[in-house]
């Protein structure tokens, strides 16, 4: 398929811009563009066909089953978009006077209130643009807290070896040294090992709960108290919140800071469609360090409050990805507190149903036949016996028009496939998928070569990932 720059004709123009209806201002010569701007020279028909064609080559949750573990690719209800499209939300400018956008500010206020209730936090800030950005912001809060107390020797963040790669990366970005904590054979935090590594240099501990194996940390209260007793703070990565909404709260488990992924748990667009949103919540003792401006109520009006001497400062221009927050709030208000709880219960039920139906065929090394909202298959045996790797299995799924699960994560499971069906799939879909997984397992023994060569039906089969990583071409011009 041609790129849009390879199409069209140099003399073709598409003038969609209205005539200028404000006085033209001339700018200094040095700010003026020297070269002609490079835009595709295509007609509206060509644009429409180009993007329609592209859309047919993509695969989203509207196309089919999309169990990308740890990503919570749930269906995003269309009502979210309907509400976000309302002119009062979409036709506003971030520099508009505050008294004209009171409704928008109220969206933030309400979303903060609900998310605090769900997580057990005292405040929530919507500036971070995505999950890793939220992690960075949350870690900055931890840093500010220790510095403010003149506790400057705390420079270590402890991260379990099953963590998302963003956890150690964010900790390093925020200026900490990362201590890697091995998991137990059962896939949990090793409490004894944790006791040994904590000390006067412990700034904090990062954890997802349920963890990346899809298990709820049984000793969570003991774990968070070990960190608190050592003088550190507990950071909750909200990647797996979809398993526990309305059932358990990070705030009650002893966490001081959380980040959420609205694009995972709260059904807002995800991946290429985004943008994401990674709000950061914290307990009272950290609120003074949150980014500014914060929304506050003053004389019956909502306003952006800039003044805050101890704030870590801005982490994004304006106030985060507003329309994403509108969608998340719509989702929460549509479901209500009972609905959110049901969503989590069904997410866990769906994952356990799949696990139960697959566990006699596949090796599922952790959890003893139970899981929370996701589970991890190991194809190590298949790789050894038939050279069919997790990648081959994932690629083969594409020919059945279902999206593969997350591969090769978490790192503590070899040849891992991490399956998160979410609550928005029906039993019929799950049964279909279970049958396909089993069929492919048999095929790996009877016809492994076909799996090495799959997929056969997709527009792109096996891109050269190594060449792409070694010599990436990142732009057309």
């Amino acid at each position: 398929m041609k790129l849009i720059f390879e199409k069209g004709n140099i003399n073709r123009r598409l003038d969609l811009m209205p005539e200028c209806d404000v006085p033209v201002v001339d700018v200094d010569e040095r700010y003026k563009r020297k070269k002609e701007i490079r835009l595709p020279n295509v007609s509206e028909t060509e644009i429409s066909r180009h993007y329609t064609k592209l859309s047919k080559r993509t695969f989203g949750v509207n196309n089919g089953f999309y169990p990308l573990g740890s990503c919570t690719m749930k269906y995003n209800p269309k009502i979210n978009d309907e509400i976000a499209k309302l002119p009062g939300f979409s036709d506003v400018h971030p520099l508009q006077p505050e008294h004209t956008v009171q409704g928008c500010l109220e969206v933030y206020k309400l979303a903060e209130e609900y998310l605090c209730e769900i997580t057990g936090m005292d405040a929530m800030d919507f500036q971070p643009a995505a999950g890793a950005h939220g992690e960075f912001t949350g870690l900055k809060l931890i840093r500010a807290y220790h510095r403010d107390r003149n506790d400057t020797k705390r420079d270590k963040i402890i991260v379990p070896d099953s963590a998302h790669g963003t956890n150690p990366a964010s900790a390093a970005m925020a200026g900490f040294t990362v201590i890697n904590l091995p998991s137990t054979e059962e896939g949990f935090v090793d409490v004894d090992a944790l006791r040994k590594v904590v000390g006067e240099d412990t700034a904090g501990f990062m954890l997802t709960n349920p963890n990346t194996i899809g298990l709820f940390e049984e000793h969570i209260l003991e774990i968070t108290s070990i960190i608190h007793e050592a003088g550190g703070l507990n950071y909750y990565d909200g990647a797996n919140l979809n398993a526990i909404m309305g059932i358990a709260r990070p705030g009650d488990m002893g966490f001081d800071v959380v980040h959420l992924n609205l694009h995972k748990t709260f059904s807002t667009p995800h991946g290429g469609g985004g943008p994401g949103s990674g709000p950061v919540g914290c307990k009272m003792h950290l609120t003074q360090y949150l980014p500014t401006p914060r929304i506050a109520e003053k004389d019956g009006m909502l306003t952006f409050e800039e003044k805050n001497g101890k704030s870590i400062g801005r982490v994004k221009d304006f106030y985060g990805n507003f329309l994403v927050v509108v969608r998340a709030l719509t989702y929460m208000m549509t479901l209500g507190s009972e609905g959110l709880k049901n969503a989590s219960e069904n997410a866990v039920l769906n994952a356990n149903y799949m696990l139960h139906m697959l566990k006699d065929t596949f090796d599922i090394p952790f959890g003893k036949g139970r899981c929370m909202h996701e589970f991890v298959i190991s194809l190590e045996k298949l790789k050894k016996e038939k050279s069919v790797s997790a990648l081959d299995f994932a690629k083969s799924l594409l020919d059945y028009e279902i999206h593969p699960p997350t591969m090769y994560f978490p790192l503590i499971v070899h040849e891992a496939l991490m399956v998160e069906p979410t609550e928005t799939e029906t039993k019929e879909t799950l049964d279909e998928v279970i049958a396909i997984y089993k069929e492919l397992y048999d095929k790996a023994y009877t016809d492994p070569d076909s799996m090495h060569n799959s997929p056969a039906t997709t527009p792109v089969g096996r891109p050269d990932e190594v060449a792409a990583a070694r010599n990436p071409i990142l732009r057309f011009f």
Partner: protein
Amino acid sequence: MSKEFLFTKTHEWVQFLDDTTARIGISDYAQSELGDLVFINLPEEGDEVIVGESFADVESVKAVSNVYSPVTGTVKSINKNLLDQPELVNMDAMDAWFVEVEGISDKGDLLSEEEYKKLIAE
């Protein structure tokens, strides 16, 4: 160089050139588990390396992994070829040394080739 290779449980090899100088790389098993390497991050000459601590990292299409030092000493030289051609490690891991360390004052528990083979067979 006919000196024997010794191994760590974390899949590095070390080859002593004399009592206090050695070359370090990763094992063939390590490269095959990692898959095609796309990037290698090496220390600088003169950096200190410490037994059991990470001194380099390797990135494959799958993941980034730390490389742990089997010895304590000072980096005498690095294999600059690996920076542009990480695939050299996939082609011959035992030949593609990462660093040469001098002034070695300590070493970890090292396995013989036979013991290492037993470990990875498990």
